[in-house]
């Protein structure tokens, strides 16, 4: 390693500090806000069904554009993971084999 590597830039601009704290506050609000807001939302009926539908909908919403945009090899890798997980394989094994399939495919093709 060069001396350049060790010369870490320790300067801190005041506006940068404000920007970072602002980002931190906004982000923390989004982390905690949804949970706190639920205090004012009544229980039962629609709200219960809506809340229990959030995890699935959010999970699908995270994954769908990725699956839509990636290549066929990556999709095949994710299918390997999904199939292994569906038949009850250990989740670490399912993830590693799916990822390894893509790495192998990339190395070969």
């Amino acid at each position, binding site marked *: 390693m060069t001396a350049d590597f060790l010369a870490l830039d*320790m300067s801190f601009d005041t506006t940068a500090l404000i920007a970072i704290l602002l980002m931190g506050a906004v982000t923390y609000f989004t982390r*905690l806000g949804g949970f706190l807001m639920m205090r004012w939302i009544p229980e039962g009926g629609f709200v219960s069904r809506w809340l229990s539908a959030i995890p699935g*909908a*959010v999970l699908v*919403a*995270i*994954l769908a*554009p990725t699956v839509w945009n990636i290549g066929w090899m990556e999709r095949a890798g994710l299918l390997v993971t999904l199939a292994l997980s569906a038949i009850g394989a250990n989740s670490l094994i399912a993830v590693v084999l*799916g990822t390894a399939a893509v790495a192998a495919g990339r190395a070969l093709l």
Partner: protein
Amino acid sequence: METTFTTAGLRRGISLIWHVAISGFFFAIAVGVVARDVGMSWLEAVVMSGVVFAGASQVAIIDLWQSPLPLLVIALTTLGVNSRMLLMGASMREWFRPLKRRTVWASFFFLTDINWAMAIAERRKGETDAALLMGSGMLLWATWVTGTAIGHAVGGAALDPKALAFDVLVPAFFVIMIKPIWTGRKQLLPWATAAAGAILADAFIPGNAHVIVGGIAGSLVGGLLRDR
């Protein structure tokens, strides 16, 4: 279902997420590298990762990092990119409500997409220990900050994780949450709505709007469907 919060739960959270932390580490290195490229100091980049701890929004504001810093635009962009976490927090209502306020406030600092999904999946399998979220989040936080520090220090010399398919590791991790979160055919319509909404939003709106658009659309459809 009951709620507990134990040190054993913190440790179990760590053991359930360490493989994701590896890919998060490489992503953090990349964030450190680009932060250096836009002129952020090492200390600024490391403090940003420690305080904000939200990858997509950090990448989004790096595009805006110039002199003078557009504070309002930075705040609004951060809100837009991270608003999806409002939905995730809301979905934790039943599990976290019995906990002490400071436990809840500390836990939610460590909420990210991946440990939220992992915790919810465990909950659906019958987990009571809410400390899973915080334990896993603490490991993700530590690797995130370390990765940023290393990335900024080494700069462009960072390695290429693509050959090892680390870019597939995170989606693969989300894929294994599908089975525990799937509860039956009643979810087909909400999930299809979420997928369509997310793909459309991803094509037309920048940032992470696809998660909130698809998540709201899909969950509302789920809420409107009556139990048969």
